[in-house]
């Protein structure tokens, strides 16, 4: 490593109306260094990298690259200077081919034939298999990310910025990505890596800068710092592990008897003979690999998907033929996985979104006339109780960061005093302290006598909060087992089931 840092930021400040996104941020990155940028949702990580990439202009402060002044006024200038960026939400065009997508992100793109050959070469060199002629809309999330990475690599970047690259990848794809990144680092490319996943950062990154509320609050060496210490630096306070009181479960609230149903989606998974009971005050955790019937189970419980009579009982009453609204009136509430578009209407305000699910139980309407005043104060209550970071309830759901919207969506259901709450992926994409707060709220709910069904991909989370654990596999639910004393192998067997044996045959 040379003495001149590859990139040096001094005193960068950027303010938006009502919020200072970055306040006097300084850091430096050496060639070949893998540098992590850590922080909670809304700590200012995205704004910082947007300034480096020329999408946002800093209000104050300077940037230097190899000792020379660096002030890109548009992404083109940043790319020319050797900065490449892989976006959190991929900046790809679905209807265009891989090669066309890559050409769009390059200065002086060569002819398509030449480019296709270059793409093949680079994808071979870095172990990122990708065919240049395929249409991007047909690719998996991991393959799409490869398109972005190759687009950056073709321009010989000196600094590669990666914004939460692993949130959409399978564990195998994460392995491939890390191999590529390590190889790049050895070749001298610096990497600025943004992620929530602290264990990933510990295994990949050489150094880390922690941001909180727009300010740098510390630097550390991830390999020598525990994940818990890093999380506490981000949050600025001691993390509390959710606690729950041991209570004997009450009467049966939800009873599924041989629940079978076809999936409403062509690519979905049918539910097969699911029988389980959940009692008041009990948390049933449901794990399993995504796509094994999680969405369908939530839909069958929330009432979005109707089922044959006699399969779904709530407090002894058959509710299989009731839609979401009557079920909500009875106290069956749910929060689906997809925040934008399913749990919340993206372009509607938080007040309107509060009205959408809470009109009945919070009496926000009276004989068809909406009471916006009450809806607004209900939205305000969610924002305060769950620490949702937003200027106010009149902001559109789309304008919130993923973690903040998740807090809002969960809070909206929790505050409606459900008797049965079904949640899919309660803390997906949420930072450590917010996740702890959401889990605590769910546990408090159970303690007050609600029955909870928590569907999650995060096994640690399920082990932490659920009383009993079951796994979905090919639409079948395993026999629920008490969480205490359950070990990893047993969980693996429950998740694998016959599915794992089928794989073994192949």
């Amino acid at each position, binding site marked *: 490593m040379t003495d001149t840092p590859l990139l040096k930021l001094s005193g960068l400040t950027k303010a938006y109306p009502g919020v200072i996104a970055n306040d006097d941020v300084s850091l430096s990155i050496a060639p070949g260094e893998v540098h992590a940028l850590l922080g909670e949702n809304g700590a200012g990580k995205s704004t910082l990298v947007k300034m480096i990439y020329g999408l946002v202009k800093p209000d104050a402060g300077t940037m230097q690259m190899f000792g020379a002044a660096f002030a890109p006024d548009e992404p083109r200038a940043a790319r020319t200077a050797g900065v490449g960026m892989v976006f959190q939400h991929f900046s790809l065009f679905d209807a*265009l081919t891989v090669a066309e997508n890559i050409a769009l992100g390059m200065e002086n793109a060569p002819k398509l034939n030449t480019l296709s050959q270059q793409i093949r070469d680079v994808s071979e060199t870095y172990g990122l298999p990708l065919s240049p002629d395929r249409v991007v809309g047909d690719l998996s999330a991991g393959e799409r990310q490869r398109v972005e990475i190759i687009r950056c690599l073709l321009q010989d970047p000196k600094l590669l910025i990666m914004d939460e690259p692993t949130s959409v990848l399978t564990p195998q794809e994460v392995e491939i990505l890390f191999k590529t990144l390590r190889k790049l680092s050895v070749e001298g490319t610096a990497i600025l890596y943004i992620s929530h996943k602290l264990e990933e950062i510990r295994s990949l990154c050489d150094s880390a800068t922690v941001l909180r509320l727009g300010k740098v609050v510390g630097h550390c060496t991830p390999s020598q710092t525990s994940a818990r210490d890093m999380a506490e630096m981000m949050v600025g306070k001691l993390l509390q592990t959710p606690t729950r009181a041991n209570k004997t479960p009450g009467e049966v609230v939800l009873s599924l008897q041989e629940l079978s149903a076809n999936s409403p989606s062509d690519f979905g998974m049918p539910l097969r003979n699911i029988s389980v009971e959940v009692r008041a005050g009990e948390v049933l955790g449901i794990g399993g690999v995504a796509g094994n019937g999680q969405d369908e189970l939530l839909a069958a419980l929330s009432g979005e998907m109707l089922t044959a009579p006699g399969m779904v009982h709530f407090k002894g009453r058959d509710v299989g033929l009731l839609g979401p609204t009557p079920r909500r009136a009875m106290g069956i509430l749910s929060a689906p996985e997809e925040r934008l578009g399913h749990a919340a209407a993206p372009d509607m305000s938080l007040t309107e979104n509060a009205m959408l699910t809470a009109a009945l139980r919070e009496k926000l309407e009276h004989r068809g006339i909406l009471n916006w005043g009450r809806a607004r104060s209900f939205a305000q209550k969610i924002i305060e109780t769950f620490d949702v970071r937003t200027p106010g309830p009149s902001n559109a759901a789309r304008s919130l960061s993923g973690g903040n919207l998740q807090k809002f969506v969960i809070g909206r259901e929790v505050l409606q005093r459900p008797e049965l709450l079904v949640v899919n992926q309660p803390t997906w994409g949420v930072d450590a302290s917010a996740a702890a707060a959401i889990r605590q709220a769910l546990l408090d709910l159970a303690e007050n006598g609600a029955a909870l069904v928590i569907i999650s991909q995060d096994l640690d989370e399920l082990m932490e909060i659920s009383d009993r654990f079951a796994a979905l596999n090919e639409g079948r639910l395993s026999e629920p087992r008490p969480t205490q004393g359950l070990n990893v192998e047993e969980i693996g067997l429950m998740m694998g089931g016959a599915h794992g044996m089928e794989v073994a045959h192949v």
Partner: protein
Amino acid sequence: MDLSAINPLLFVAGFLVAATPLIFAAIGELVVEKSGTLNLGVEGMMITGAICGFATAVETGSPLLGFAAAAVGGAALSLLFAFLTQITLANQVASGLALTLFGLGLSALLGQSYVGIKPPRLPDINFGPLADIPVIGPILFTHDVILYLGIILVAATWAVLKFTRAGLILRAVGESHDAAHALGYKVVRIRTLAIMFGGACAGIGGAYISLIRVPQWTEGMTAGIGWIALALVVFASWKPWRLLLGAYLFGGITQLQLNLQGAGVAIPVEYLAMSPYVITIIVLVVLSRHKGGAPACLGRTFHASS
């Protein structure tokens, strides 16, 4: 009824002329929609082009200057649409409808003193001996320069969209304005240019009606060609060559029904008059059964929020 009164050569030559206004208006709208903008104001821009071209040709005596003025007039009117939708972020459907109503009214006002005048005639290109070739000559080589320009424009649009970087960027903006913006492309500027191109094309198409096809000025003389152009773009699945085919189909049936009316076929005139619209739409709907091809961001408002 006397079908032998229909001269096949004049018929084919006639439908090339009938299709030309539609080709211009539709190819312009195709480019606009490829950039992700839906401009329903084609009819308004056509009629504005028709009167701008007519007035200029009459005043200067030069039909070519008239066509230039028509392009400028159409593009100027489309700038109003660009301002509303790209700068003030108004709804594209409402703005487009307003543009059509505005264009119809404005053209009626501008054209008050031009009713009943005959415009100067644009001469056909002299292809020399080529025009004497039997059958092909009278059909293909007896037209004015604008008609050939229309066909060249379709070919050029196809080539630019398919083979050039500018075309790729245009398509990219129409597919995902957010992604294009993240890569540093100027979405609003690109769309504004596309809208102006669409306006200029629609204007030329309108002037072709008032200067060559009819040729005189009457209020509302574009008679819904702008709306057909809009439908044509969709049913042609945003493909230039298919659009050309659809335009010829429409032109062919228009010409045929005129000839049939002349020949005194025993079908009420109203049915004959509606036939080009009905048949063109049916054929194109059948052709475009396989959906797809629509730019993903078509009609969506872009706002560069960081």
